[in-house]
């Protein structure tokens, strides 16, 4: 039984505009948290990574946080 946020809330696709959701998968420095810690499936982790990178490019999320 998987207990990650995406499975619990039945989220099939991660949108780059959902900044609050994406922040759950980032550490305080702005880095993407590893799959070991997020507990996501490989497919979910790839989706989250792509969404975070899109959000970073669009200035919705930081590349690094001091």
């Amino acid at each position, binding site marked *: 039984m998987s207990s990650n946020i995406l499975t619990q*809330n039945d989220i099939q*696709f991660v*949108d780059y505009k959902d900044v609050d959701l994406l922040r759950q998968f980032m550490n305080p420095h702005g880095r993407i948290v590893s799959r070991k810690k997020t507990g996501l499936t490989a497919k979910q982790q790839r989706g989250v990574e792509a969404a975070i990178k899109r959000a970073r490019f669009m200035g919705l999320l*930081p590349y690094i946080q001091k």
Partner: protein
Amino acid sequence: MQVVSNETSSEEKEIEVSGGADALLDVAPSKNESDDTLQIYEIGYHIAPAVKEEDLEKIVGALRAVIEKEGGSFITEGAPSLTKLAYSISVREGERNVDYDRAYFGWIKFEGRRAIVRALTESLKQNPNYMRFIIWKTVREDTRARMKAPTLREVKRTDTIKSSVRRAPSEESTAPVSEADLEKAIQEITEE
């Protein structure tokens, strides 16, 4: 994913347009996809905050016109709203660079053929009002999460300091007390 700024890349030269706003194109064709295949795309854009709010509709209208001209059909749309950016974005305005820490962010999800992506890229790169944009392949379903993501720190503001209301000095207290009244009041107290 491919970042197209001003340099050319070998993979998607057909969509390369030099100069103008920075663009991220995530539209690589899949194996069975031809130029005529209908595909769902989403475009997200930042319009410079120097643009007046009443002109936004006109600028986005031009973007919609490009999609319609190429035979695209709209699915959903997010109107541009002033958004605070996570980092400042530098934009070339005339002969100088200007840093913006906020921008009008909007998006459009639409269905169309591959030619739309090229037309949009050319159109947006030529328009100096656009700071940055992204075009990527998506799905028809609504991808926005319906859940409210828990915030890291839920702070209950119980310790808010309320400004105390200062009472204006009443006229009664400031009125000069006559000698007779004062003596009368003292006598009343001493009698007790």
